[in-house]
Every structure is written in structure tokens, then in C-alpha cells.
């Protein structure tokens, strides 16, 4: 397993009022993303535990594009990865943001 951590400054707070959400499952080629609204509005953090070792550069690129596109201010993402492909990671991150942007708990 490899642990990675990314912290980004972002311009805008993520929408919605839910405090946490979870999408995906940990399986071969899949991952789970737990997102929690626990950070100041201009910060975003992503913690990754991945079964695929040596893909740090790819994660940097995927996370960079994601933060730029979605501006997930105030959110901490925790990822358990079973070796998912980058496009699956992007999709799950987007799904997590959509889910926490819903209104509710």
C-alpha cells in the first residue's frame, strides 16, 4: 500500500449543506471516496491509500484537474483505492462532490 496526501488552496466553498458523503466500494479497479465538510472554506485536502504503488505523478495530475474543475473548498477527501484507473478516480471524486452538494445531513 502507498499513502499519498494532497493539499490545495481553492477559491470557493463547495456547495450544499451535507456534512459527509461516501461513494464507491473498495474492489479491484474501484475505490471509495469519503468526503467530509471539515476544513476552512479555502482549503481542500485529499488523503489516499492505494494498492497500486508508484502512480504518484498520475494522482497529482488527476487531483490537480479535479480541484481546478470543482473547487471543492472546505472538503476533506479520504480515498481507499483498490487500483482504480484514473478516469474512475475522476468519476468517483465528481460523484462525491455531487452527493455532498445535496441538501441534507
Amino acid at each position: 500500500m502507498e499513502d499519498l496526501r494532497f493539499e490545495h488552496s481553492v477559491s470557493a466553498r463547495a456547495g450544499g449543506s451535507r456534512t459527509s458523503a461516501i461513494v464507491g466500494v473498495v474492489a479491484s479497479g474501484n475505490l471509495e471516496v469519503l468526503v467530509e465538510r471539515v476544513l476552512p472554506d479555502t482549503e481542500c485536502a485529499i488523503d489516499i491509500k492505494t494498492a497500486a504503488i508508484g502512480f504518484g505523478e498520475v494522482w497529482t495530475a488527476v487531483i490537480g484537474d479535479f480541484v481546478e474543475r470543482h473547487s471543492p473548498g472546505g472538503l476533506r477527501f479520504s480515498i481507499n483505492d483498490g487500483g482504480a484507473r484514473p478516469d474512475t478516480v475522476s468519476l468517483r471524486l465528481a460523484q462525491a462532490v455531487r452527493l455532498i452538494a445535496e441538501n441534507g445531513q
Partner: protein
Amino acid sequence: MTGWQNNRAARDARIAAGAGFARGKLVEAQDATHLLEAVIRPGDRVCLEGDNQKQADLLSRALLAVDLAKVSDLHMVQSGVVLPEHLDLFDRGVAKRLDYAYSGPQSARIARMLFGGKIELGAVHTYLELFARYFIDLTPHVALIAAVSADREGNLYTGPNTEDTPTVVEATAFKDGVVIAQVNEIVDAVPRVDIPADRVHFIVKSDKPFFVEPLFTRDPAAITEGQILTAMLAIKGIYAPYAVQRLNHGIGFSTAAIELLLPTFGERLGLKGQIATHFALNPHPALIPAIESGWVRQIHSFGSEVGMDDYIRARSDVYFTGPDGSLRSNRAFCQTAGLYACDMFIGSTLQIDLQGNSSTVTASRIAGFGGAPNMGADARGRRHPSEPWLKAGAEADPDGSALMRRGRKLVVQIGETFGDKNVPLFVEKLDAIELAEKLNLDLAPIMIYGDDVTHIVTEEGVANLLLCRTAQEREQAIRGVAGYTDVGRRRDHGMVARLRERGVIRRPEDLGINPLDADRSMLAARSIKDLVRWSGGLYSPPSKFRNW
């Protein structure tokens, strides 16, 4: 001795030698090896029928068992190297030289044997190309073929899996060769005559039906969100704007996803009747929902598919069927149809390089070509116009004279940027080149050449290579849909942005598609069981695909 009918005399002598093991044309299965020893001469060109589906498996086992003092050093000229016995022939020394087209399940072993010098390789062909050579310089002396049934005169019924048989028999029987058929049963009257008796010299009754691989069944349960997104991009970004009606699909999961999205996503886009009406295609179970929803008018097939027989029989408006009601497939005609009468080929591959060349060869596997290069090639001999063909031609050459400009076939490569085990689809250098260097081949085994490819579709977007004006634009258009692969991350961001402004690259949002909508609930069938339901119980999938 000089003369002009030596070959006919030799053929008659072979038949006479074989007749000792036959009653009429009928030979018992246990005498098959003796028959082959009597008929085949050392060094003969032999076609052992087998392709990506049906296999003359009894005759391959019989050939493997011959006495090497009688039969050796054969030159095998056959579509498929698929069964282990096909390669055992070379290990044993029964055969020496090989010309073939496809080697799916044996791709790793054939690579090892080529490296080890066990096989003297002529060339790897496309199906159509090998068929063509049967009539010019690779005509078989003996053809060993497979049929469903025969009558006592030797008329053959090949059943839904007719496939290569008429072509092989034509080349062999009309050029003084000997045709030996294995059949599942001997009957008083065949349901229809696929091969007339006067082209068949011996018939061996097999104790069990010839083997057929269900190669074209894709379980909808295994289709991923990424493949659904890619399929949506293809439908909205290519099928719709070009109004593609006549086409061929590859066998991957991305094209299966397209087939399953036609009655849902395609219907919502109002495309029914506008696209995907006429196919050169095997009877893909995944196409059942589209057929049942009235999308598909006509399908001609290379071969059949296990479990589809009753469905095809009941849908003869769509499929080609014989007077007996069952499917009549024909690989040579269907390949020709795909080459000349289809406006689009769409399929997946294993590797694409920066020029758009693609290959399914990896350093340790030689899968052969099969039919994809003929489907996925612009037909330079084509002369009839059609809307998609003209539109593609105009995009490639906007300044040319409309009356003199060639159209272009749409050749679309579809896939996810990363394949199985996170292996990237896009590479700087194809493994095929490395292989050609190691094996000293004159040609690297390229499946589809870059100059034939018109579009590449991945989950990141659609690249229209017809609109690229320079090699550099083409490279950046490819990098621009290559996602997070090394090739994709080394893109020139400025140039990719400009290509996107010109519509050379179109992202999901440019096509009005939200990747979050790419959900399995969009598939018209999400399991094999759903396909059975759509077919009204007519589709009967093989056991390996069942979960009931």
C-alpha cells in the same frame, strides 16, 4: 512425363488411395488418420478449417496422429490457429510452414514457437487476404473442413456457422484438390445444400459436434460506467453527425455498450431510423434490444453465435437465412460487405501510437489480424457515394473539388485510456515494432494504420483526425484524448485547447454529455438474463454466461 492434366491425375490418385478406407464417401472416425495418410503427401499445402469460431477438431486430432514417415513438413494455410492441436502439428513435425490470419487463444504459444524456430512463418494475413491467396499462390492440395450434416452423396449442410467453408472448398475443389469433411451426422436429406456433393470427396462422421467458441457474447453485467460514457460520446459525437447507417462493430465491451444504448440514449436523441440500420456483423446478443426496438433493418454475418440460432430463425427479416430457416453466414462475402458497403468501422484495440497506428500485438502475444484490418481500412476501390462517406471526405479535403474528391470511410478506434490492469492504451512506440525487430519480420504487425483512422474516442473525448492538417496537429489531437496516460500528460495544453476550439477535439461537455449521467441504468439490458427476456426466450445463452 509432360502433359496438361497432371494435377487432375494426382488428385484422382489421392482419391483412389483414400477410397480404401471409405464406403462410398463415408469414412469411420477411427479410420480418419489412415485416410489422411493415404491422401496427403509430404510438403502439401493443407487447409485445416478453423477460424475464430468453428473448428474441424476431429480432423485436426486425426492429422496430428499421422505416421511421420507418410506425412510430414506440411504447409498449413488456414484462417485460425486456435486449437492446441494446430500448434502440436508443428511441435511433432507434421507441419513446418504456416500462413494464417488469426490466433486468439494460442497467441502466446505461437509467439514462443516463432521465437523458437519451430514454425517457419509465411505471413500473418487478414481473412480476406488469405482467402485471396487461396486462389493465387496458396491453393490447398487438401482441405479438411467441418459441417453439421451430410447426405450419403456428400452434399453438406454447414448450418448457421457456414463461415469460411464455401471459400475453402471453392479454392480446393476447383483446382484439383481433395476435400474431406467432418460432419456431426449423416442424414437422408440435408436441410439445405451449402456445399454440393461433387466438391466433397470424403466424409468422416464425428462422434461429437464440432467445437464452436461463443466469441461474440459480451455480458452486459461487465460493462463499466467508463465504457458507457465512451459509448455515449461515440453515438452523439460520430453516429449522429455523420448519420451512419451502414456499419460494422468490433467485439469489445465499448461497442457492446453502444448496442445497448441505442434503444435508450439513442432513442432519447431521436436517432432511431437515422443511424445503425444496416450491419455487417455477427449475431451479437447485445444487439437484441436494438433489434426488438425496431432499430435494425438488416444484418449480414461472418459467422453465427452460440445460442442465437432460434432467435435468428424467428427474425429472418433481419438476418440472412436459408430455405431451412437457419442462418447462412459467409465470412468472405461479409468481409467484402464490410469493406465496400459499410460507411463505418468502430472497434477497440490494445495499443495506439502518436500517429494513430494501432496493434493488438504485445511483446509476448501474436493474436493475428482476423478481419479488423479489412473492416478498418478505407476502401480505395469504392465508387458509390453516401452521406457519411462524402462528409468525411470533405472534412479531410475541404478545398478539393466536390466532384473529384474521394469520400472516406469512418474508421473509429474506441477505448478507455487505460485497459486491463491499468495498461495504457496510448504508447509512444508500439510493441509490434519491437516484435518485428526481434523476429526479423519485413513488416510490423499493424492492425489498423494511422492514415486509415478517422476518429479516436475515449472517455476524455472524441478526436477527429480528418480535421487535422499537420502531423503535429494529429499527434496533439491524439494526446488530447489520451487521458492520464504518459502520452496524454505530455500534451501541449495550448495546442490541445486550440484544437478543441476548432472542434477537432470534443469533450463530453462540448457534446452536452455529463459524465455523471453515464450510469448502468442507461443500458437497455444489464445482464444476459435481460437479453433473454428481450428475445422473448428465443436467445439461449451458453452455460458459462448464465446466473440462473
